[in-house]
C-alpha cells in the first residue's frame, strides 16, 4: 500500500491547518483523554443550545491521523442535533471497525480516513477524538463536565 493511500491530501491538509483547534472558555461540556498507546492527549469543547451542538473545538497534540480526525470531526458535528451527532459517532466507529461502507454521502471528507482501517494500530489514533466527544456529551449533568487535566 502506497503512503498516499493512508495519508490522503485531505488528511495532510487538516493536519497542517486544523479547523477549530482552539479552546472554548465557556464551553458547557469538555472532556480530556489520552491515547495510552502513543501518549497523545486531546481535549474537546462542546457548546450546546436547545438540543443542538452549536460549537465544537479541540486542543491537544498528536499524530496526523488523530489531529486530522479531530479537525474533520468538529466540522462534521457542528450544527447537528445531539441525536445526529451520536449517530455520526456510531457511524464513524463502524467505518473504523470495517463494518460500515465508507461512502462519501454519509461521511464527506471523513472518507479520507478509511485507509486507516488497514493499520489496526492507527485506528485508535483516528477514533480518539470521537471517544472524547462522546465522553464530553455524556458528561452533561456533572457540574461543568469533567475538567481538562
Amino acid at each position, binding site marked *: 500500500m502506497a*503512503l498516499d493511500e493512508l495519508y490522503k491530501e485531505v488528511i495532510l491538509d487538516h493536519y497542517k491547518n486544523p479547523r477549530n483547534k482552539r479552546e472554548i472558555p465557556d464551553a458547557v461540556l469538555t472532556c480530556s483523554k489520552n491515547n495510552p498507546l*502513543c*501518549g497523545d492527549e486531546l481535549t474537546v469543547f462542546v457548546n450546546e443550545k436547545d438540543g443542538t451542538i452549536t460549537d465544537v473545538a479541540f486542543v491537544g497534540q*498528536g*499524530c*496526523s491521523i488523530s489531529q486530522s480526525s479531530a479537525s474533520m470531526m468538529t466540522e462534521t458535528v457542528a450544527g447537528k442535533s445531539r441525536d445526529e451527532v451520536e449517530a455520526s459517532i456510531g457511524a464513524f466507529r463502524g467505518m473504523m471497525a470495517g463494518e460500515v461502507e465508507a461512502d462519501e454521502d454519509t461521511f464527506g471528507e471523513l472518507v479520507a480516513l478509511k485507509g486507516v482501517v488497514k*493499520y489496526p494500530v*492507527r485506528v485508535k*489514533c483516528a477514533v480518539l477524538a470521537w471517544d472524547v466527544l462522546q465522553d464530553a456529551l455524556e458528561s452533561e449533568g456533572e457540574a461543568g463536565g469533567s475538567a481538562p487535566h
Partner: protein
Amino acid sequence: MALTEQRGPSTFDAERIREDFPILKRTSHGNRLVYLDSANTSQKPRSVIDTITEYYERHNANLYRAVYELAEEATAMFEGARTKLASFIGAPDPNGVVFTRGTTESINLIANAWGRRFLSEDDEILFSELEHHSNIVPWQLAAEATGAVMRMVPVEDDGTLDAERIEGMLTGRTKVLAISGQSNVLGTMPEIKRLAASAHAVGAVIVVDGAQLVPHNPVDVADLGIDFLTISGHKMLGPTASGGLYGRLELLEAMSPFLGGGEMIMEVYPDHSTYKAPPHKFEAGTMNIAEEIGLASAIDYLEGLGMENVRAHERELTAYAIEALGSIGATVYGPKDPDQRGGAVSFWYKDIHPHDLAQVLDQEGVCVRPGHHCAQVLMRRLGVPATTRASFYVYNTREDVDALIASLEKAGEFFGA
C-alpha cells in the same frame, strides 16, 4: 586513525554476522530490511533456531522426575543452560540463577517474594525517573501491600543519573534501590558498581534491571556487587519468554516462594508445604524448557563474538548515528558521549509525530519504534508525548544508519516539514 579503522571489520564483521540471521534476508515493502528495533526484541541467529528445532525433534520431555533417557537429556540441557547463563553474567553459583520469562516476570518475582516479605510501613523504595514501567509498577504494588513509600530520583538535564544525587537520597529508611543498568530510551548507563556499594552502606539491596544492559555489555554481577539482576533472553538473540533472575543466594534463600505449584515443593500437607532450595523454589510448574535451551545457544553465539567486541561495535555505530541524526536536524535525547550510553537512540525529527514518522519509515523497510517505550514518567520529563527510537545490535551496519537517515529525509519531504 589506522587503529580506529582496524577495530571495525577486521575483528568484528557485521556483514558476515548478518549471514547468520535468516530474517535479514527477507525484504519489507520491497526494500532491504533495516531492523533498528533490537531494544524491543532482537532477531535470532540460525544456530538458536536450529537448537530449538533440534530440542523438539530429539530431546523433548518434561524435566527432573521422569527416568527415561529423553527426560535425562532435557534436564541436562536445561540445567546446562542455567550454568551457562550463570557464567555469562559472572554469577558465582548457578543456583543463584532462577529461570523466568524475562525482566518483567523477574522484577515481579522480587517485588513479591522479597518485597512483600521484607518491606514494611514507611520503608522507602528508591527508583529513577528513567525506569521502564516494569521497574516501577511491581514496586508500586508492593508498596501498596506493605505501606512502603516510593521515592524517585530525577534524571539530570543531560539524560544521565547523578550518582551523588542518588547517594543523597539513600537513607536508613531505603530498603531497595531499583535501577536500570542501561536505559531503553536514552541509553543512559548509571554507575552501577558505585551505587551498589552506596546502597549497601545504608543497608539497602540493589535491583538492577538488566533488560538492556546484559545483551549489550560484558556483565559480572560479582564484580558489580549487586544483589539482583534481571535478564531478558529475547533481547539477546534468544527466544521470547526466555530469561532469568540472578539473586544473591542468601537473599533467594530468605525469600518467600513466588508461584506455588508442582516442582517447587519438597512436601505438601493439607495445611502447609515445604519448599525446595533456590533456584527451584521459584520455578513452579512446567518451565520454558526449549526457550532457556535456546537462550544457552544465544549465549554461545554472543561469547563467540566476545561481549567486549559487541559493546565496541555498538559504541561505534551509536556515535555514527548520533552524529548523522544531528546533521539532519534531529534532536537526540540522552547523553551524547557514546562512552556513557548504550545503543538505544531516541530522537525527535522536525515536529513530525513519531507515529507518522515510523509509518513512513516502514514503507522504506526501516523498523523503528515510536511511542513512550513503557517510560511515561520519563516522557513527561522530556516534555514529549512520544519519541522515535532506533536501536542497534550485532547485525547492524553503517548502511542501516544511512538507510534510516535517507528515510527520515523522505518523511520530512512527505510531511513538508
